[in-house]
């Protein structure tokens, strides 16, 4: 498909010179600076950009909707000849849900916890007088079947908390389809999902959008995802349009530097280090660990070693036990069976029984720098506290050490030492988190999804920093992640986990070359690639029943 395919189609949405502002305290500051957007009937437009680019804000504006504290200051939004900005809220209500529908990022948060799925599904058709309750229920089940939800006749009678994330996301797509709208806004619908689940949702969304010839705006920060879904791609940067082009054109010949830099992100790859000498003592050795929350075992006989100066990536989907393993190593969750060894010596299982030097050698960096840093302490205090606690430095010596550490994380102390976390960007906060763990002068650092909350360019910077620090300080990392691209770029060895078991482990080069364990293979094949035909080919190759949860279920 090319843009030409839609040239003759009627224009559905026409946004002209849109300027939007958001309020913080008493001031209005710009979010969108004069963006135009045209969408024809049946066309899927991909809106991509990093966080803060204004893609969700623009997506909602195309529905004539602004969140609280946001306003459209200039411009016009026409939907099928109706001026949405001039329309009364009553007129807009008649369109929303009926002709324009919305699929939110987190289906778990966007379904009302108090009502059954089917009741929420039928609400819009009933309220808009499109269908009766019975008709809409029957239609809902039909849509559930089309979207390949398990037990389509029964699943609607469940409450949102009784249904898994990927299923909820598909149920939400079905709900958006309930009145057969002309336009659906998909706002990062797969961002919160695991890769194997994501692929299933992508496939069903694409299929149903094609079947009903619905126009869509697909908002995401993931280029590979948008390449599968969109006919046209528009790139946004801090509220400005960077460029817009037909998908294949955009992927093969991006014209703007920013777009090229986005495309280049995934190319950072550190060479794998040579294999360790056999018989050397690992820094951390996890030995036959079985651990339980309450009475239910969540880890089963997990064993792996992490050697000096090496990075072991622990990969798996949510609920696979990656973070639980980290909790066992740090002593937050004493294992039921098994032991943890540090430099060949067994560690007390409970962190309260470990002495200071044992605690010092194992440090952690967290996923959400936002919540892991005390919002009321300055950077100097956040880093200074472990310096004082573990090394006993005070006063000027402590300050000097803090400055050294800030130098290592490439944040100039003169500029940042007195800042609060709220005065820094996500990537800068994560760097402070790294400095805090380095302050203890550890041998081993657990990195728990440290890049998954960050934009790709920023995440890459963090990965490079971690790699440099490893070489300089001879650190060992346990790198917990669900993102295989991250694994490819930084790991020496890989441990694949599923449902609390280690499925496969070995050096990275081996893990990324066939033959794989069936589950590893599924994980690898589910990562979207920057090729617009990737999903089509994969579905052709594997068939719709051999992707996602259905395929996971077949692996025993």
């Amino acid at each position, binding site marked *: 498909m090319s843009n030409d395919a839609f040239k003759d189609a009627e224009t559905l949405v026409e946004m002209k010179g849109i300027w939007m502002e958001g309020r913080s305290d008493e001031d209005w500051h710009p979010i969108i600076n004069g963006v135009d957007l045209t969408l024809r009937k049946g066309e899927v437009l991909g809106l991509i950009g990093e966080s803060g680019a204004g893609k969700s804000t623009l997506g909602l504006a195309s*529905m004539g*909707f602004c*969140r*609280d504290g946001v306003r459209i200051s200039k411009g016009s939004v026409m939907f099928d000849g109706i001026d949405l900005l001039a329309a009364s809220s009553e007129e*807009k*209500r*008649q*369109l*929303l*849900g*009926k002709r324009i*529908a*919305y699929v*939110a990022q*987190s289906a778990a*948060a*966007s*379904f*009302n*916890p*108090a*009502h059954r799925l089917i009741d929420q599904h039928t*609400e*819009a058709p009933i*309220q*808009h007088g499109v269908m009766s309750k019975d008709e809409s229920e029957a239609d809902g089940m039909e849509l559930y079947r089309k979207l390949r939800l398990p037990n389509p006749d029964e699943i609607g009678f*469940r*409450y949102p*908390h*009784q249904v898994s994330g990927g299923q909820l996301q598909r149920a939400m797509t079905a*709900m958006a389809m309930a009145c057969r709208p002309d336009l659906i806004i998909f706002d990062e619908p797969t961002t919160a999902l695991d890769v194997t689940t994501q692929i299933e949702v992508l496939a069903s969304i694409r299929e149903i959008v094609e079947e009903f010839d619905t126009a869509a705006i697909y908002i995401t920060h993931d280029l590979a995802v948008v390449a599968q879904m969109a006919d046209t791609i528009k790139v946004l940067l801090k509220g400005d349009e960077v460029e817009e082009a037909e998908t294949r054109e955009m992927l093969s010949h991006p014209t703007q530097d920013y777009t090229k830099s986005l495309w280049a992100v995934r190319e950072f790859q550190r060479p794998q280090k040579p294999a360790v000498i056999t018989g050397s003592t690992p820094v951390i050795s996890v030995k036959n660990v079985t651990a339980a929350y309450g009475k239910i075992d969540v880890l089963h006989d997990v064993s792996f070693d992490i050697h000096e100066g090496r990075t072991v990536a622990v990969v798996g989907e949510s609920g696979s036990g990656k973070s639980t393993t980290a909790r066992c190593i740090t002593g937050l969750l004493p294992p039921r069976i098994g032991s943890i060894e540090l430099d060949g010596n067994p560690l007390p299982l409970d962190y309260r029984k470990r002495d200071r030097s044992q605690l010092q050698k194992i440090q952690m960096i967290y996923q959400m720098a936002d919540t892991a840093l005390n919002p009321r302490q300055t950077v100097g205090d956040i880093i200074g506290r472990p310096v004082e606690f573990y090394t006993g430095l005070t006063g000027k010596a402590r300050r000097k050490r803090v400055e050294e550490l800030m130098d290592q994380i490439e944040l100039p102390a003169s500029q940042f030492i007195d800042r609060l976390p709220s005065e820094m960007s996500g990537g800068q906060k994560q760097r402070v988190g790294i400095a805090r763990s380095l302050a203890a002068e550890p041998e081993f650092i657990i990195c728990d999804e440290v890049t998954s909350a960050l934009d790709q360019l920023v995440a890459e910077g963090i990965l490079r920093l971690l790699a440099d620090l490893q070489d300089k300080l001879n650190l060992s990392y346990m790198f917990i992640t669900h993102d295989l691209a991250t694994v490819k770029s930084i790991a020496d060895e890989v441990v694949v986990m599923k449902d609390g078991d280690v499925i496969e482990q070995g050096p990275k080069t081996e893990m990324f070359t066939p033959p794989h364990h069936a589950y590893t293979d599924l994980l690898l094949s589910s990562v979207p690639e920057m090729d617009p035909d990737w999903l089509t080919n994969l579905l052709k190759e594997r068939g719709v029943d051999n992707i996602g949860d259905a395929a996971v279920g077949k692996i025993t």
Partner: protein
Amino acid sequence: MNSVLKIIAQRLALGLLTLFIVSIVIFAAVNLLPGDFAQAILGQGATPEAVEAIRTDLGLDQHPVKRYMQWLGGALQGDLGNSFAQANFASFVGDDSGVRTSVAQQIAPRFANTMFLAGVTAAIAVPFAVTLGILAALYRNSVFDRATNILTLSSISSPEFFLAYVLILFLAVLNPWLPSLSNIYDGMAFSERLEKTLLPALTLTLVVTAHMMRMTRAAIINLLASPYIEMARLKGINPMRVIVRHALPNALAPIINVIALNLAYLITGVVVVEVVFVYPGIGQLFVDSVKIRDIPVVQACCLIFAAAYILLNLTADILSIVSNPRLRHPK
């Protein structure tokens, strides 16, 4: 649901313990007050002999710990003892008929009246407050919202007797629609009883509405930023339905808790309103009994008050749990 039963059992056991502790505290507190029943009832004409005689009659000359144990022993068997004030004293009247009005007999009709008043008030105030709260949330920051807030806050800030007299002035004196005295007696027809109770009930409604209305409003507004509310709006659902169907069911827990606290207040704290309307409730009896140190009655009243708090809070907690679909429909 088993977990709910377990919670009920645990809370009831804790409740019994609370009642036990309350009874000790009250008994000790009344004993700490200067004077005792004999002195209070005899007043200024008390002779040491008369005081002594009454004390012996009632056992007040015994050690407080022993008296408490005797009371506790009786209470555990369901006998709350006899009211001092209702006793005929041999030393007083010359002959003891042996007939004693028990505390239970004395409190029962009063308690029933109090429950009736609380019930009527709740039936008016709860729907009124919740509806006002919903409307205030729907038209938040509008003139209606502000006016509602100002009125309910003024009514809760005014002394109860003042509100009572204002209502009497407008509803009984200037427009003689309702009786200003609530003389309730046994065997009254329900409608007549209701009519006589209406004015005190309206006064109390003014007192308790503000809390419940403001909590309803706040709990709903708190949810309006959630993604599922945004979703409902983006489905083109009308604003009233968004609030009643999408926000309210998820805001029930805090609202229920505030309702329970206010109902407990209606049972235990309405003595001023009872006095103004001469309503024969338990509050007046309680105050009179404290005045004359009538320990058995004071004890019984306090146990009833404490039990009301415990049971209402328990009910609120159970309802909060049941209002959560995650607990009602486990995975």
